[in-house]
């Protein structure tokens, strides 16, 4: 299920940059503990397969996600970011995902304006029962990022993966 890398993938934001042939995108996934992380565990226990490019970070709630986690991930290791939380109304902490949702929308639009493709940072609501949805979401995000090519914006200079 390795994300398929074609001969010549260019970075969508900087078309002059061509991805090396062995390039594999890195997706940073930040998941809330109670819904999405549990959902991703269910994907595992159900043995559903998805592309191996995502690296998952656990946080208690999507409201713990400070927008600068996203910025930092884009600056350093990530080619794409996925943030996932509980469905609206299902937040383990009552209202956390509502606050998070506001920040995400503004962050997404701001990143879009300064020149990031909107698929670089994506969001999803995945419940603890939606193992299949998690696999689909990861596949979609990975496919999207493969199409966008490597991210070369505002990267730290010593980033040499």
């Amino acid at each position, binding site marked *: 299920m390795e994300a398929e890398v074609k001969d010549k993938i260019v970075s969508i934001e900087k078309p002059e940059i061509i991805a090396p042939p062995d390039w594999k995108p890195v997706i940073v996934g930040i998941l809330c503990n109670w819904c999405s992380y549990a959902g991703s565990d269910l994907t595992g226990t159900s043995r559903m397969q998805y592309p191996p490019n995502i690296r998952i970070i656990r946080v208690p709630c999507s409201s713990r996600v400070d927008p600068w986690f996203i910025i*930092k991930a884009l600056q350093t290791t990530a080619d794409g970011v996925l943030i996932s939380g509980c469905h609206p109304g299902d937040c383990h902490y009552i209202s956390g995902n509502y606050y998070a*949702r506001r*920040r*995400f929308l*503004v962050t997404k639009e*701001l990143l879009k304006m*300064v020149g990031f*493709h909107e698929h670089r940072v994506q969001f999803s609501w995945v419940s603890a029962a939606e193992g299949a949805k998690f696999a689909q979401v990861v596949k979609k995000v990975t496919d999207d990022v493969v199409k966008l090519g490597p991210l070369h914006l505002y*990267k730290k200079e010593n980033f040499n993966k």
Partner: protein
Amino acid sequence: MDYSKEIRDIAAKLFADGKIDVFVGYRMNGFDDNQVPVVITDPKEVSTLVFTEKSVFNLTNYLKTDHTRGKRVGLIVKGCDSRSLNLLLTESQVKRDRLYIIGIACEGVVDDKGVKMQNCTECIVPDAVVFDEMLGSPRGKKDYIVNADIRALAEKGLVERREYFEEIFENCIRCNACRHSCPLCYCAKCCIDQETASLYNGSNTASSAFHALMTWSLHLAGRCVDCRNCEKACPSHLPLHLLHKQNEKVIFENFQNHLAGVEEGERGAFYKYSLKDPDDFIM
């Protein structure tokens, strides 16, 4: 718009009545027809006060300095300034009973070259929303218009936008003047300067500038009142308002027409939520 005389009279009376310790206003800069802020503690200096369409700087920025903290302060606020003052009050940074606020029904201010500032042409709240005394005749609220530059940017392609902003972040020298001149940046120590952030973004590279400016604008999202103090301070003349106006647009259009600091006691857009907030961008 010239309220110099009125303001001198008010300030003199406030000092005479012992109602204030400090007055923050404007004076002529002494070499051309532009003005600079002035922090007055000596009633004798009241005669230097002026207020015209050249009174640009948002004086609420001075409420975070040692000269005003804990003192009784008289100050002048235009529409946008009063919005930041409103937020400072809501966020418990100043005490209302220590302030004597001269509100201005603002007709718009002009930049150094005498051209009306862009934020004034797009101003929504020209009249001071919090004041003890109002000068000028109120003009009422205007309809929200999306910033002209934001509209122009939306027309551009991804690569073009990237090139434009890359130039902005590359030209940022990270002097942090924008932050220091922002009345709403009052943190004891800015997160950008703290270890956790600076461990990875301490240098003055473009990447760090990207991090700093993005974080800064997100911390002001739903709070920025578009006074343009930051732009006035920026030695690189960067169009910083783009970041704020973009956030303002997204917030206004999606979060029940939220505008920072217009309503008394209303907090920034990120400190509340509505069940009706858009959800369609989330998978």
